[in-house]
């Protein structure tokens, strides 16, 4: 695997991770707003 390919795969993975964390934050925020928060975000959450 060339250095360039490695770099692009790494960039894609990191971008995916950032998008995932942003999505989670948004979902938690939405749930909290809906007063339906089940308290199960990241951390020692329940499910």
């Amino acid at each position: 695997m060339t250095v360039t390919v490695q770099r692009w795969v790494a960039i894609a993975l990191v971008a995916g991770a950032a998008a995932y964390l942003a999505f989670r934050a948004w979902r938690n925020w939405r749930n909290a707003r809906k007063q339906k928060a089940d308290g199960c975000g990241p951390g020692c959450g329940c499910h």
Partner: protein
Amino acid sequence: MTSGGAERATRESERATRSLRVALVGNPNSGKSTLFNVLTGMKQRVANFPGVTVEHAEGAYVYEDARITVLDLPGSYSVSAQSPDEAVALDVILGRKPGVLPADVIVVVVDAANLERNLFFASQILELGLPTVIALNRMDKADAEDTRIDVPELIHGLGVVVIPVTATRARGIDRLRHAISSATSLPLPDPRAALGDDSDVERRYAWIDSVVERSVVRRQRDRRSVTDRVDAVLLHSVWGLCVFIVVLLVVFQSMFTIARPLADGIQWLVTQAGAFTVNVLPAGDLRSLLTGGVLGGVGSVLVFLPQIALLFFFIGLLEDSGYMARAAFVMDRYMRPLGLQGRSFIPLVSGYACAVPAIMATRTIQQREERFATIMVVPLISCSARLPVYTLLIAAFVPAVTVGGIFGLQSLTMLGMYALGTVAAFVSAAIFRRTLLRSDTRALIIELPRYSMPSFRVLAASVWQRIRIFLRLAGTVIFAISLLLWALARYPQPDAPANVTHEQQLSQSALGHIGHAIEPIVRPLGYDWKLGVSMVASFAAREVFVSTMGTIYSAGDDVHAPGLAERLRAERSAKSGALVYTPLIAVGLMTFYVFALMCTSTIAITVRETGGGLRGGAWAALQFVYMFVLAYAAAFVVYRGGLLLGLGGGA
């Protein structure tokens, strides 16, 4: 209406005729949750803690082509509910809870070994006149005590179907499923036989006595002599406390001894995976991401899985064996001066596992002020998420020597951290009860369930559930954060990478710049920028501290080196060559983690359980701020005090 819409409507109505909602109710300790797990094949949607069902949990199974949805509801002694958890049960049964459909069939779980008291609640449910089935649970216990229950006679007396089951051994479940599915076609219980409200208990108990007299034969009247003899010691105000402390010591010691080889095994696997990656891939960004970000970050957290599983196992053991209620009774007299009753003790002990179910468990406390005070202090109890932090720092900086022949210094240090958090929780509770949350302390009234050998099946299920939660956390949030931190630690790269050491590269990376910005805040505590960054990242979840340190210390490496602990111990300042991390810094850091509230789940659950919205938000904010101030002050005092005493500080 389009034909597609019509088709969908038909399908839905068809499904409606073949689905059934079942509510499980009954006294606390009647084995509802176990029965729920057996009925639904342990596929819950909502996690419950052993002994503490406070919210309804929903599960489902298929029986004769019909989809049966089962609701597991909190245990209740009476329909005139008083505590928030009991109110949930009644609201669901009567269809008063918004968003939850009312149940078609009610299954009352009745403890066969404790029939009269259980029938009190059951008789109240029968008076609602809804389709009801009685699951006569713990038949094995009743048999062991030579209690013969004449089921047909009991059916005659109660006027509904009674199915004997033993949930812990999955006996009688098929018959129960059949009874549930046919309950709606049977005659309803007769509400005309109502026995008045709760104040008319004498009549109700007289009726129960007459039913029991006709259907039950007890050979052995003095059936609890063993339990009573054990309780003679365990309920003693001094001996009981001593036993409790010894139990805790044994739990902590075995957590260390048993978990060690398992953790070493996982570490070995992670190291092997790193070596494999290096062999397969040439040097480059992806290889660095896999060794540094994935294995360094996620791998360093996975090592703590055995300890966390063991902790949940032991707490489940204490709860399921019936010991927890005794501990609450013994602690009642010691907690009263603090303004809490013994009942608050159970959420506090659950807090050793996780603050989220512990805060939910405070719903069994009836009085608002007592309940809020308990919620405010529960996160001070060291939960399983702190374990990785403590274990890493202890393994790195506390020598593995034995004290007094039995206990290792390492496990004693760990115990000290737990004790520190526990004492802080008690003191804070006393302060809250004397200032913001003043009220009379309600009396302790608690049932002491008989001791029983916990079912391995049930324990294993709850431990497995925790393992899944932990793995999911490691696979999602910790994984994503590790990748991001890896990127921050690797970029921007210097122009001539060959001439730069790993240390210099790291220092000039984005993460290095963030770290140097944070450094002034953590400097008074003796920490360098790497610890600062890890601490800030761990506000997402405490375990992230370990994964971040793991990522930082392997981001520049091509070969994944084993053991983060060894690296921390060996880390030296680039300028002075002095050790960067000393035992004093490690103890200060652990102290910070004892007190600080770094768990978004706990914050969310506090908001919800203290009323939600702005009011709940204010309580959660207060909780976060007071704990942070406490953490910073304590870490400062430890570090500065240690320096004054000449204990050595590091770079």
